[in-house]
């Protein structure tokens, strides 16, 4: 060590131009998305405010805001939950079949077909739902009401048109199937060979190998895919507006002709004819949808993180 007269200033790390441009554009994009989100939230709250503060008598239907939005929130959630309950197990099974059971050629072809489902416009799903699926389900609903009517879900009386909550739940299930199965397929196919071989070498059958090494690895991906699907189901507008005859209030009866509508479909159907405070009311319901979607996403994040220690990422 030699002594120098002046203590050396700590050398400033050299910042290269490329680094600065990249860091700047990356943080810019990050900030932008936050601004957009904040902008949407501010707009929704601002526009919903008159409806939130207005007297019940001035609102459409002459009822309080909660009484107006409540059934819509309920309808939105129940349609989405039906869709998720039907689609997730099916999507996981399809993904497992494609990744671990199907012969390679068939698997590729099936993958394409499933992805094609995602490319069908929602209005086409709506037409399919009302023209094909709903009439086809009418006899089933009759049977359900007759034989399983003691379960509140199938209390009936069965809808004569088939345009029920259960129908739209099934249509939504088909719509969200591709996104869930595509993401599940992706994560299942990336399950490390290391762990799959570990299971096989212990004498696991193929299904046991999948249970030990593939499903635990893919779990958070499947949950993520399901949440994306749920987001789509919650926000789906066109298909619901076409298929569901939404006129009723809160009910768990899934097969009758009186069903709550969903937020998105209600906005689409009512908006063209609304003015003044009615528009603010619709926007307030939109705010509710925004809050639900955010809550769902945070819940999904929490589920995924809960057992982060065991995720294999460490």
């Amino acid at each position, binding site marked *: 060590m030699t002594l120098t007269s002046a203590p050396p200033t700590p050398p400033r790390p050299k910042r290269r131009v490329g680094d600065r441009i990249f860091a700047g554009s990356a943080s810019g994009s990050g900030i932008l998305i936050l601004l957009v989100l904040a902008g949407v939230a501010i707009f929704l709250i601002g526009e919903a405010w008159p409806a939130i503060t207005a007297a019940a008598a001035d609102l459409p239907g002459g009822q309080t805001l909660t009484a107006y939005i409540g059934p819509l929130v309920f309808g939105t959630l129940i349609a989405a939950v039906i869709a998720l309950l039907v689609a997730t197990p099916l999507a996981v099974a399809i993904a497992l079949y494609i990744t671990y059971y199907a012969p390679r050629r068939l698997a590729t072809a099936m993958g394409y077909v499933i992805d094609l489902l995602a490319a069908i416009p929602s209005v086409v799903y709506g037409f399919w739902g009302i023209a094909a699926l709903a009439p086809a389900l009418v006899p089933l609903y009759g049977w359900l009401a007759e034989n399983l009517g003691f379960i509140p879900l199938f209390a009936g009386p069965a809808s004569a048109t088939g345009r029920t909550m259960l129908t739209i739940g099934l249509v939504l299930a088909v719509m969200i199937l591709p996104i869930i199965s595509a993401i599940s397929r992706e994560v299942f196919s990336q399950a490390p060979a*290391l762990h799959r071989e570990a299971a096989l070498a212990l*004498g*696991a059958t193929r299904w046991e190998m999948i249970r*030990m090494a593939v499903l635990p690895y893919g779990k958070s991906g499947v949950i993520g895919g399901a949440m994306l699907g749920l987001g789509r189901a919650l926000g789906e507008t066109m298909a619901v507006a076409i298929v569901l005859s939404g006129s009723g209030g809160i009910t768990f009866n899934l097969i009758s002709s009186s069903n709550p509508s969903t937020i998105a479909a209600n906005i689409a159907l009512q908006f063209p004819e609304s003015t003044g405070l009615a528009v603010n009311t619709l926007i307030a319901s939109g705010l509710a949808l925004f809050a639900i979607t955010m809550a769902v996403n945070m819940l999904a994040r929490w589920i995924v993180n809960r057992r982060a220690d065991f995720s294999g990422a*460490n």
Partner: protein
Amino acid sequence: MAKRIDVSDLDIYYGNFKAVEGVNISIEPRSITALIGPSGCGKSTFLRSLNRMHEVIPGARVEGKVVIDGQDLYSADIDPVDVRRQIGMVFQRPNPFPTMSIYDNVIAGVRLNSTRMKKSEMDDLVEKSLRGANLWTEVKDRLNRPGSGLSGGQQQRLCIARAIAVEPEVLLMDEPCSALDPISTLAIEDLMTELKDRFTIVIVTHNMQQAARVSESTGFFNLAGVGQPGRLVEFNPTEKIFSNPDEQATEDYITGRFG
């Protein structure tokens, strides 16, 4: 428990490609047999054919016989799943199941095989297997933590504990120390020496000192040339292989004049 393995005229194919040709070898019970040779010479493929793990790769097949205690592993009525339950394997990179705790990792194989066990029996088995793998004292206070939180050497010993928990007849080890530091390597080698009283052990290694230290017999695999199948060039007691091998190719490889 430990069984003798007789391999005769074994050819191993991946699709149309013949990877290994004409292996004849007799592996003694309760001993350690080392397989050495340059990369790509088929020794890992051969090792994996001993518990039919090579069949994981589509198109892989064998011709010839692998007989363990009078039973041909490749006869038509044998299920590869049953073979693997009797012949355990430890891999090159430690691979405990990341989503399972240390405890669950150890009994993963037992859970597959059986028959419900009482909690106390499982506890005993976990302790016995972890003691058998010289890991018990290090992990006994954190059996419910994920196995992936252990060091590499500990993870590899956990994998050995998992393999021996099912009391296999044979233990196959595919370069079990190549991802480990010298101290962890020594721990695993000591462990192998203890385990050979109970199991027949076959180990593939690139480390010739390791082969010389732990094994009774050594097989040297080599390629006849690029694109040619690998062959078992020489199989002899380890002492002879490392002092006075029969084949010139073996001596060249061991003394480093080749490959």
